[in-house]
């Protein structure tokens, strides 16, 4: 028997997107791109696990969610796992793959609105903070 089977309940706590990154993204997206969730629910939502409160994308936020998904998926190793996570997370958000492929970089485009540019910076900062937090001594 493998340890995973022995430690059935415990192994269910394994995450694809680590806690620090989830929380920095929570700081940016909770109540903005997504309806309000508790911190724990948000971590579960990001990790495709059941939540106490229903998780949903707020109206007209799909475009921004796509950029967040792209950025977070690039932090997941190995790369294939990141791609799979993106696909499953988009499905959970009700965003089609074709919409994602077409719009995931729109907030970086030259003609992007000020709000979208600010949002992009916030997501980039969240990713950088998570990286730096776990790198510093």
């Amino acid at each position: 028997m493998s340890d995973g089977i022995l430690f059935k309940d415990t192994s269910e706590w394994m995450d694809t997107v680590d806690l620090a990154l989830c929380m920095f993204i929570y700081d940016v997206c909770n109540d903005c791109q997504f309806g309000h969730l508790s911190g724990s629910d948000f971590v579960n939502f990001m990790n495709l696990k059941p939540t106490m409160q229903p998780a949903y994308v707020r109206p007209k936020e799909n475009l921004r969610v796509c950029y967040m998904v792209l950025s977070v998926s690039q932090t997941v190793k190995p790369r294939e796992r990141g791609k799979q996570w993106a696909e499953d997370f988009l499905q959970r958000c009700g965003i089609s793959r074709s919409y994602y492929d077409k719009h995931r970089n729109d907030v970086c485009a030259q003609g992007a609105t000020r709000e979208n540019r600010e949002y992009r910076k916030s997501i980039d900062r969240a990713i950088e903070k998570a990286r730096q937090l776990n790198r510093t001594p």
Partner: protein
Amino acid sequence: MIISNISQRLQDVNTLLATCRQDSITFEQAMLLSLFYKDFNDTNRIVTEATAMFQDDAEQLNEISFSLFSEAGRFLSLDITGLQSVDFESLFEANLRPFELRCGEAKDVATVLWREYSAMSNKLDFLPLDSEDYKSLDPVCDAKKAEYDTAHARVNLLYNELQQERDRTFCVYCFKPVFLSVLVERLKGISGSIISDIRRMKGDAHE
């Protein structure tokens, strides 16, 4: 193994939160809270370690998990709303200020010395090598250069100190009380799951 000292560290956090004035915590207190979050936010590692430890010492793992479960419960029963008003970014910046000031002052001293040295060096360029002025200014210029080199080395030293302090305390800069609450909720969940897994496996072994 990080799993073996989470409980003790969480106990320190709980003691602090139960005894301090949460809305006016010091930098050192903010450091204790944020360092706990930094050191234990990798919950995947905790799960992996627990799984490995079960093979080596299930009894000790059980004890650690009970202790962690209890401390996490204690944390979650505390009222930490006072922490909401703390500006962790400002605490981080205030702690760095003396380092920045020292570095800035040393840089100013070095800049003045460099200007003085450059002026002398430029003057030497236009003096005949065998002139009295050259002979008297040359050693002064060398001494000034040595003085500048020492000051410059001090700037580098203080700049490195500043960077090290920035890295060491970065966890305070990006800390939010909600991060700690979520981590502890998960630690409680993980320790509860370890306890139930061990109990189940002990039950299976007795059947």
